[in-house]
């Protein structure tokens, strides 16, 4: 039984002229436990809407989402979404440690053990020594690390990530990708990541679902057989990597 199932999901919005605009059309896929799956597609193809539906934050117009065979009709307890806008999602009034503790408190954990766990997670994302800082005192990349640590503190079985590295600089992006792979390997959390960066999707995941624009639909599913552990220089230079990249690029370009 897959951990996460998306079955014939549709989402339409009421247009201004009374006509409904179809944002997502009939998307189906499923994810097994501990898989790392990427959704890649052009900007504005409804990727965020899709994630919001899976996270139970937006109700779909049709089809269903299920986590552990249980239909999602509200934010499910085993799943957390990491937002693209980390600076709007972090709690400005809490310190870095306080933000991570929030994830534990939401799970009903508090006191010394919770604080120790929060510190360990901050270590895992490479932020030891920044516990007492406030989010605004950190760079964008570091803020996104805080958001990831906060999500991990909740111990979700599924971690949804919406363009998590979309607004950090290129070098930081590569660092964060490797940090995420390290965390994934260590914790075994199932990850569904949305990105418009084809290479990022291939580099990180076991499988890539290629989305086309308006309405959003899966036009191809590509398995990524590249060996792990991956690294930014070697993996990206492999012929298999280039092949996948070109194949996905053409698929997106053809779909327009």
């Amino acid at each position: 039984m897959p951990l996460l199932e998306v079955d014939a999901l549709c989402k339409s919005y009421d247009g201004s002229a009374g006509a409904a605009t179809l944002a997502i059309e009939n998307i189906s896929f499923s994810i097994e436990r501990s898989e790392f799956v990427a959704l890649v597609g052009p900007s504005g193809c409804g990727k965020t809407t899709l994630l919001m539906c899976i996270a139970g934050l937006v109700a779909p117009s049709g089809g269903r989402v299920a986590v552990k065979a249980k239909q999602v009709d509200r934010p499910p307890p085993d799943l957390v979404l990491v937002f693209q806008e980390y600076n709007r999602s972090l709690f400005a009034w809490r310190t870095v440690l306080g933000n991570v503790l929030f994830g534990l408190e939401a799970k009903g954990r508090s006191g010394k053990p919770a604080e120790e766990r929060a510190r360990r997670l901050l270590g895992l994302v490479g932020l030891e020594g920044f516990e007492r800082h406030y989010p605004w005192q950190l760079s964008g990349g570091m803020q996104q690390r805080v958001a990831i640590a906060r999500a991990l503190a909740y111990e979700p079985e599924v971690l949804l990530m919406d363009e998590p590295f979309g607004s950090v600089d290129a070098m930081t992006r590569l660092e964060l990708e490797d940090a995420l792979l390290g965390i994934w390997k260590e914790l075994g959390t199932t990850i569904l990541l949305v990105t418009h960066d084809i290479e990022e999707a291939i580099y990180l995941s076991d499988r890539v679902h290629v989305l086309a624009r308006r309405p959003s639909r899966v036009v191809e599913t590509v398995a990524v057989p590249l060996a792990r552990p991956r690294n930014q220089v070697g993996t990206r230079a492999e012929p298999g990597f280039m092949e996948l990249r070109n194949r996905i690029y053409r698929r997106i370009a053809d779909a327009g």
Partner: protein
Amino acid sequence: MRAERRFNVSGVGLFAALLLLWEIYSRAAGIQDYLPPPSAALKALVEPSVARALLGHLAGTLGRFAGGYFLAAALAVGAGVVLGYSRFAYSVSEVIIELLRPMPSVAIIPVAILCLGIGDAMMIAVTVYAAAWPILLNTIDGVRNLDRTLIDTGRTFGLGRLKILWQVALPAAAPYIATGLRVSLPIALILVTTSEMVAGADGLGYFILDEERSLRPANMYAGIVVVALLGYALNRLFLLVEARALAWKRGLQTRGEA
């Protein structure tokens, strides 16, 4: 920020010059019965019997102020969070709010006297009424301007509505709430002293009016000096507490300005 800390020489100079002018005019014109020189007010202030009486009245005023202000804060923040969060709750109360808000709050004093009689309950009630408005409206504003992403963050972490209000909406709206609390501070003091003048048996407002009626203008001015200092001190205290409580926000602002 920095300019505020600097000692304002010219400002204090003008204030001292005006006091001096008043002193000279009052002595020269021989109108000390209704406009005693500042030195007379000062002398009254430090006279043991007057000072003792003033201390008692100050305690009464402070007590009523604290009761009214904190009660107003608790009620208005609570109501404001709910009204800011729920469109339905707001539209139900909108007409009442729009009608009552522009009414000068002192108009409620006779109503309070009718309903509650003369005494502390009535004076605290009118203070709560007047002080609640700025806090309520600012809290509503703060909760309304909340970033949708913050609420969705609370939801994806499995928080229910109440917990989102308490743990996300309330702290996120804290800067707005602080603005309301700051505006309400002098309003609460105005209502306390006014109601003491109208229907009090003690308190600085009562003292000021009573001394005026007893033809002791120097004592009256001494009372006015004490209320003025009280207002000043309360405001400074507020700014101090606010700076500590919203330390996280001050950093955000400085960065935004840079």
